[in-house]
């Protein structure tokens, strides 16, 4: 009894309040997007809003269970969760069902579960466990290889399921590694790679390399101190050129035609209002029509006419944009921002390294979803189809994000008991 009191007392109510607000906003938007004129029964599970209500109920149960379980349970069984989910991801490749082009679902009765959603928290646990081991030295090559390996395994398996969006999520762990002492170059390298990637697709690779060579020489010419260090500078030049070539190769040979198209549309190389660009354009119109204050709850004409495809899953942000306007979406973005910053603050106050790293993992994953999902609905990121945490319709993603968050909140509630 004493124990339980302590939990409710120590739990971070700021995070929980934002969690609940996001879920409520999400459900209202799903309701708007999926309900007809007359609603007789909110619990009607033949409708999306009814189903989501059921899943919210189950998510609440999950959250409570996690808060009751001993905090050490998750750190002790980190690797078990990780290996178990990797095996399930392999299983999906053989026995899974295909939904919307991705072979990433397990069908049980009338319901479908997407294991890739749950692989995120397992990977965050495994990463935290590994980096918090006593004699791990971040500067050693072995440490770097293993920690990147922990990320690459689920990413590759999910990529094989043809679910590019969920695989890209593991990119977000760059933030965790950065915080734990990976060279700051990892962040800068990431940004440079992203820039080179886009530039290569926009211009021919030979121009890009010529420009790189030119920039290198100008730098060496202007900054005298670089002259003595010319060797690493040339190393970077060679690596960048190789990267430029491989981007071109990968783009032509690895990406599926529809993915290529989406990237081309985003970069403005291709105009395609009927295919890949369709969703984004419809989405921008729906959001744009919301204006400052929005059209009001259940008044979003475009939403009600199914104007935007996928509007209760990946494009749920549009519904909010149309019905609640600029004020509404700003509030939503600020809610997310507070949650993300709060998670970083909580992570920093942990005594155990494990909890801190896991906390950063949670923040990074949520941040990635937030960035890509909202970015794509307003035309700033490619349409890769990943859910908006706690808002998008769907049981798997809601439960997975709930588990992800509450494992950390449990660690946090328990932080004073850690020696």
């Amino acid at each position, binding site marked *: 009894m004493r124990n339980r009191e302590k939990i409710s007392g120590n739990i971070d109510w700021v995070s929980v309040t934002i969690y609940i607000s996001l879920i409520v906003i999400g459900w209202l938007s799903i309701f708007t997007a999926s309900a*007809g*004129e007359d609603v007789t029964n909110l619990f009607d599970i033949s409708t999306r809003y009814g189903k989501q209500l059921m899943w919210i109920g189950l998510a609440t149960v999950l959250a409570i269970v996690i808060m009751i379980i001993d905090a050490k349970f998750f750190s002790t069984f980190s690797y078990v969760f990780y290996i178990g989910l990797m095996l399930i991801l392999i299983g999906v490749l053989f026995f899974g069902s295909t939904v919307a082009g991705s072979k990433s679902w397990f069908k049980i009765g009338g319901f479908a579960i997407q294991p890739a959603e749950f692989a995120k928290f397992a990977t965050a646990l495994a990463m935290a466990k590994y980096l918090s081991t006593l004699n791990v030295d971040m500067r050693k090559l072995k440490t770097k290889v293993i920690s990147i390996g922990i990320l690459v395994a689920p990413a590759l398996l999910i990529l094989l399921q043809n679910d590019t969006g969920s695989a890209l999520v593991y990119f977000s762990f760059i*933030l965790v590694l*950065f*915080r*734990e*002492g990976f060279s*700051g170059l990892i*962040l800068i390298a990431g940004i440079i790679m992203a820039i080179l990637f886009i530039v290569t697709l926009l211009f021919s690779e030979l121009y890009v390399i010529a420009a790189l060579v030119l920039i290198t020489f100008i730098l060496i010419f202007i900054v005298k101190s670089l002259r003595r260090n010319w060797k690493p500078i040339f190393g970077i030049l060679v690596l960048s050129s190789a990267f430029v070539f491989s981007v071109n190769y990968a783009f032509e040979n690895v990406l599926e035609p529809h993915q290529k198209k989406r990237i081309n549309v985003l970069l403005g190389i291709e105009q395609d*209002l*009927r295919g890949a660009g*369709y969703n984004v*354009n*419809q989405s*921008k*119109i729906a*959001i*744009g*029509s*919301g*204006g*400052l204050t929005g*059209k009001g709850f259940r*008044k979003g*004409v*475009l939403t*009600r*006419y199914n*104007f935007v495809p996928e509007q209760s899953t990946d494009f749920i942000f549009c519904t909010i*944009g149309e019905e609640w*306007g*600029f004020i509404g*979406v*700003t509030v939503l*973005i*600020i809610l*997310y*921002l507070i949650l*993300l*910053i709060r998670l*970083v603050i909580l*992570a*920093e106050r942990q005594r155990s390294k494990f909890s801190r790293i896991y906390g*950063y993992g949670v*923040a990074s994953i949520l*941040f990635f979803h*937030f*960035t890509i999902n*909202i*970015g794509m609905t*307003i035309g*700033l990121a490619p349409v890769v189809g990943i859910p908006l945490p706690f808002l998008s319709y769907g049981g798997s993603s809601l439960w997975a994000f709930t588990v992800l968050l509450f494992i950390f909140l449990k660690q946090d509630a328990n932080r004073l008991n850690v020696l």
Partner: protein
Amino acid sequence: MYSKDYSSRKNIIIGVFILIALTFIIRLFYLQIIDSSYKLSADNIVLRKVREYPPRGLIYDRNGKLLVFNEAAYDLLVIPRQMKNIDTSLICELTGIDKPTFIKKIKKAKRYSYYKPSTFIKQISKKDIGSIQEKLYQIKGLYIQTRTLRQYPLPIAGHLLGSIGEVNNRDLEKDNFYKSGDYIGKSGIENYYEKYLRGKSGMSIVEVDVHNRVKGSYSNGSFDTIAIAGQDIYLGIDAQLQLYGEQLMQNKKGSIVAIDPQSGEILALVSSPGYNPNLLVGRERSPNYSKLLNDTLVPLMNRATMGTYPPGSTFKMVNALVGLQEKAIGKNSEFSCKGQLSKPIKCTHDHETPLALSGAIEQSCNPYFWNTFKNILENPKYDNSHTGYSNWYKNVVSFGFGKKFKTDIPFEVSGNIPNNDYFDKVYRGHWNALTVRSLSIGQGEILVTPIQLANLSVIIANKGYYYSPHLLVQMEGEKEDIMPEFKEKHITTIEPDNFDIVRDAMLDVFEADHGTARWFVLDSIKQCGKTGTVQNPHGEDHSIFIAFAPMDNPKIALSVIVENSGFGSTWAAPIASLMIEKYISGKSQRTALEKRIMEGDLIHNSKNE
């Protein structure tokens, strides 16, 4: 141990979070407040999605003659929410419905949706829509939508073409291509090639003002998708031959199946009594359908593919071929016949004795084939007659008997060739050639479909192989064969040389002095055939005839079955011969014969009814 505190890096991470959030807010400010091009004022613009229906693919015969085309019809749609201050009596007057019906229809539409269009009245003809169109501006909430109906220039081939109808809930669940109210192929070719015929529907978005007048296409049509027409199909059917076959079979029960032996393409597939496919179109579909469904002559049943009959004497040729192949008999083997007194099966014909194989086929001598069958089963090559039988079975099924061809032929059944297990079960393991002797003359448990019988004729015409009978020749717009399995050659167990004697005997059926079809011989075309009579315990026997022609370069092979018509030579043989002449020469010279057959009525004057 060296350890550095990196906790200050949290500021950089928080900085990244804030940067992204700010970017989003600025972008949204631009989208929602500054840039008006993304803004739609819901107060003065209502967008309406108009579904553009693609024309369904047309169906042609082998000579490019149109079998099925589309004709415009109009649906009246209603959006209940927009119906304000309407003149009910005007609507009733225009559409010809009464007030209670009107109220019922509106209620139904409201139940579906207030703001989405649903069908108010379906399939209004071109003639009637004109007057409605003129007055439509007075009625808010009603719209016209163009649809297409199937029409048939010739009233033929209803069974194989099939029909289309509105999708039901099961179709909607199975394939999200369809929307409520769409048409889908329900049967026949329309159903089998649905994915090709249906095309792709488009969607245009139009702007409508408060008075419900279309202001034009929204955003210059940049969000519209155009409807893509369905693909046209060419069938192997010869429309003239099909029509001719249906005329020959009128007022008779039975079927004709004609196949091009060189490709397996079906030239004619007649099931009689049939129906005019134009009856099952549009608003008349339902009442006509139930009328046909309740007809005691079951016109909706496709006898050519669903009817099963014991093949009778036509099957004797199969036994002869298996006997030759298994060396159970030679072409000079003779067996004596004691006519009516023969045992265990009596002979129904009066002829000289003993006969060799050729004469036995021509005379249809039962004892001869009983002996052949017995020799096959009791072949010294095998230890016992059960092994002999399973060997016989293996040979017989290689002709395509006892199984479905599984091509695009609608409503096929498999017929029956009993296997060892069946007899083991029925006779508890104790059986031999004598027990199952009926099989030697094509009776007993054997059941075949007319299409399998026509295929037998194909095999004899080709000396040992066939292509699965099918309807499709070509799908427009497809570079490759969509059905490569139709081009697959099926080779029977019988070697080509063994066919010669059977073919010669079939030629004699037309050309020899005693031939059972000698009255239908033609100077210009060398025809081969075989009569069969199937005992019918319920009435007059069924008459069967299989044939192919010309003998040396067969272009048509067919089976004809006329139920309750007695001997094969009276009805089935002349029908087969007329079909052959029609197909090869283009028209029949034998007008008197043609007239007798077409006017023959075996249904309404039947002694059995």
